[in-house]
Structures are given as C-alpha cells and as structure tokens.
C-alpha cells in the first residue's frame, strides 16, 4: 500500500486530491491519502513513530506559519529518502530552482494536470498498472 501525504491550507484541495487520486490509483493499487491543512501538523505526523511509513509528500508552497520550502527542508532533515513534490500557482524560475536546490523531486504548477501527475507518481514510486 502506498501512503501519500498532502499538505495544503485550502480544504477544497484535499477533496480534489482525494477524488483525483482515487481515479489514478484505481489502476495502480491501494492508496492511503493523509491530508494536512498546515506544515507543522504534517511534520508532527511524520515524526510520530506510530505513523505508517510515508512514500511521498505533495505540498503547497504558499502557506501561513510555515511555507512549503521550510517543510521541504525539515522533511529532508528528517528523512532524505521521501520524495517531495512542490505544488504552486507561482510559475516562476526562482521557485523552480529553489525547490530543486532544496531537494524537491518535482515542481508541479497549478492548475494541476492530474494525468501528468499520475505518470510522475507511477515513475517515481515504481508503480505498475495492475
């Protein structure tokens, strides 16, 4: 089973990912989607030993309190192996480079093309259509 963590301060995003991921993973196996409205809660979850292992993190960049870049750094300190996808409505070279330098796996622009996202996930998580 694959566990993906979503971090976005807009609740509607969670619904979107839930519905879209369900479609994508319908052909790729079981998915456990965990959503957080802010980065600190996510970190808390990752640090918790009781939490199941996370395979991938999808995070928004523009968030109050702690933004996506900070979360990325913290996650990389915690466990460098977890791939992190940065999602932003700011389509800029600076953001892309910053994300890359900080060790993000992918930089996804909004509006999200879920077909492409599905392809990327399949590649990065070595999923084969079942």
């Amino acid at each position, binding site marked *: 089973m694959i566990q993906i963590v979503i971090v976005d301060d807009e609740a509607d995003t969670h619904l*979107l990912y839930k*519905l*879209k991921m369900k479609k994508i993973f319908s052909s790729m196996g079981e998915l456990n989607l965990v959503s957080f409205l802010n980065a600190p809660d996510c970190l808390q979850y990752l640090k918790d030993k009781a939490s199941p292992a996370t395979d991938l993190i999808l995070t928004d960049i523009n968030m109050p309190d702690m933004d996506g870049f900070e979360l990325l750094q913290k996650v990389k300190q915690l466990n460098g192996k977890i791939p992190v996808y940065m999602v932003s*409505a700011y389509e800029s070279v600076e953001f892309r480079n910053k994300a890359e330098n900080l060790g993000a796996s992918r930089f996804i622009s909004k*509006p*999200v093309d*879920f077909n492409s996202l599905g392809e990327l996930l399949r590649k990065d998580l070595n999923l084969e259509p079942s």
Partner: protein
Amino acid sequence: MFDKCCVTSLKTKWKNFRTNSLSLKLLIATWAVSSFATLILTAFQLFMDYQRDFDKLQNNFAIIKNSYLDSMAEHLWSYDTRLLEIQLDGLSRLQGVGYLKLSADSKIIYESGKSDPSEDSYKRFEIFHKNTNEVLGSLDVELDVKSLREKYFTEAIWIFIRQAGKTAIVVFFLYFIFNQILVVHIRSIAQFLRLRAAQGDIRNNTPLILKRREHPREDELDILVASINQFRTDILEAYDKLETLNQALEHKVEERTRQLTTKNESLEKAMFQIKRMQATLVAQERLASLGSLTASVAHEIRNPLNFVLNFSELLSDSDDPSEVHEVSRVILKHSQRIDQIVRSMQILSGHDSDQLETADVNELVKKAYQQTITNRSLASSFLPPKVNYRLGDNLMVPVYATSLARALGNVIENAIYALEKKTQLDKDYVPELTISTSLKGDTVEISVRDNGVGVPGILGEKIFDPFLTTKAPGEGAGLGLTVAFNIAQRHGGTLKYSSDFGAWTEFVMSLPATQER
C-alpha cells in the same frame, strides 16, 4: 624774491586781484591787524603825552600859590599897581594860563584873557596880608585846557591818517609780493592738477615745473612740487599695477567663465543622462510592478482555476449524485472567486463602465449591506447582527453608484468578517455593527464600525495593499480594501481607518458632496 616770470596782462592781473581771495584775505588781515595795533599804540602814546601836558598845566596853580601870592599881597597892601601889573603880565604869559582876574574891594584891578565858564580848570586864590591875615583881594585863574585838548585831538587825527596811509601802502605791496611769491604758483599747481584730471590723461608723464627764478635753497613750494611729482609717479605706478591686475582679473574671469561653461555643459549632459536613466528606471519600475502584479493576479486566479478545471473534469465522469453536488458547489465557489478577482482588477485599472450620477448615499449604504449579507449567506453560516443605522439627511451626492456600493460592500464584508472571527473566539460576545452617514461641511462621511477582532497595529496603511489578506485561502484575495480605497480616491475622497486591536475597528470614507470635475 620778486618773480618776473609770469607775464600777464594788466587786465588779467586786475581780474586776479578781484578773484584772488587768498591775497585779498591776507591784505585785509594785515591791514586790520596793523591798523588795530597802530590805533592802540598811538592812543596810548597820545594819552600819556596829554596826561603829562595836563599835569604841567596844573602845576601852574602851585607856581602861582607859592611864588606870586605873597608878593602880590605886598603890592596890594602898598597898592603899587605898576608892580602888580608887571607881575600879572608875567603871570599871564605863563604857558596855559587862559584867564586872569585880580579883584580887590569888589573892584576888578586887573583882567587878562577871556573867561570860559565851561572850563573846569579854574581856581580862586584869596590874597591875605602876611601878618594880619586880612583879606586884601582875590585872584581868579583859569587854565586853558581846551586848546590843549584840541591840539591833541588834531594830532591824533593826523597820526591816524598817516598811519592808515602807511599801512595801506605796505599792505598793497604785500599783496603783490604775496601774489608773486605764492599765489601764482599755487594757481599753477591747481591748474596742472585740474588739467590732468580734465584730460583724463593720467598717463601724461610731464612733471610739474613752476616758472621760478633760480634760488639756492629749496623752499616749501619746491617741497610741495616735489611731493606732487612724487605722488604723480606713485599714482602712475599704482595705475599701471591696477591695470595689470585688472587684465589679470579679466583673464581670470574669462578663464573661470570658460570653466563654468564647460562645467555647465557637462552638468547639462549629466542631467540629461540622469533624466534618461530616470525615465528608464520609471519604465522598468512600471514593468516590474506590472510583472509582480501580473504574477500575483496569475497566482490568485490559478488557485481557483485549479479547482474549476479539475473538478469540472471529475464532474463529467462522476455518477455519484452526492459527489456531483459537492463538486458543483466547489466549482461555483471558485468560479465566483475568479469572477471577483477579475472584477476587482477591472475596478483597480479603472476600466469599468461606471458613470457619475447623483444618488442617495443612504440608499447605497443599505443596498451594499444587503448585497454583502446575500453574498455571505452562500459561503458562511454566520448570522450577522442587525445593523445599527445612524443616517444623516439630504445626502444626494454625485457618485459612481455601482463602484461605491461595491467599495462599501467590501468594507462591510470586512467588518462582518471581524465580528464572525470574534464570535468564534468568544462565545459570550455580542457582535455589533454600526453604519453612520453624515454631511460635514462639503464632505459626506460614511462610517462603518464593528466591535470585532480589530486590526493589528503593525499593519498600518499596508491594510490597503493588494493581495494582503488575513483570511484563510479561498476566503478572500486581499483585494477588497484595495478596491474600496481606490474607489474612494476615484471620487476625490479618502478611506481611513482606526482600530483598537481586539476591540473595535472603524472605517471612515469621506466623499466630496459636490463634484468639481
């Protein structure tokens, strides 16, 4: 020391005499002093002489008393008239005796000369007998002082006339002597100096030379001439120096002017460059702010677009009615969000079709409130409190009605949001909303006051910056107050706020009551 140099005509000389005040002054002064001295000395001398002669005259009385009276008494006693006559004749020949009269027994025995009653030098001698002291007769004697006085008076007159004449002659010669020795030369010096000044020919280097006879030793005039020539030379030198300095100065001024001109030119060039750079900077700044605004707008639109696009895609595939319902709601919400952003941008850019029209501000305020409540009811379950209206009268004002309603709506929405926030924090809290309108002078004031969460003081005027929001994502793009501020400005008015963080906030929009555009 008579100079024979200046051969001048008699006429000139006379003219000189008349105008030559220095000589004339000397003449008058000499004459006056000399005359005064002569007068005093002569008067003194005459007085002394007169006094001596007068004393001599008075002495006659003593001579008569001592030398004549005794013998005269004897002769009277013996009545020897011959001897008496001889004696009296001798007496009458004494100098200064003017009148003699011998009387005895009331008879005039002898009388000579003429009596002058006005004469005060008069004496009567009583003649006594030597032994018996019997009065034998009397002798009247008058001294002739009058002729003495006359003599001295005449003498004085003559002396004065002589002296005056003598002085006049001396003074007359003195005048010419003085004239020749000094005045003529002073005149030459003056003419020399005047000519130099009149011709303006300071460079004329002929020295001053007085036409004088050879004389072995240098006198004051020579010193004066030498001094003047020395002074002239000095002035010439100073003039030369001044000219040199002047030329140098002119040169310097020219040099400086040239430098200044060069500097000015380079300054102008620099100024031009600065202006060009400024223009470039302004253009760049404009582009940059346009770029950052575009990025912000893109970001604000991409977020809801993300939902609209992806959810609508889901919608076409979904068969679940409840899912369809929920997804539709989210799509509608985010479509509205995009619409709001686009409208706001339109208002901010001024590209809306609103027209200036006279409207009742109170009606606009009420309409804005109603619209806000209606809009909110779609997204929020919070029931706003009943608004407390304090509306003024006669507020018909030229406004962009649609824009103003929108601006007021944004402010009211903010107020209600603050109330909602506080309600979530404090259960016992009673939300209040007051909207007032009033006419203050030529300004209409619209105030929206809430007792909500307030505005953190740190925000200040940033509260009006675009895309600044304290709301959760999706709840607001941070354009509401920016738009309201812009609309107030477009009316020629202002939007200001005051707040006590955690207690209340009041927004006051001031609009001109008469439009002067």
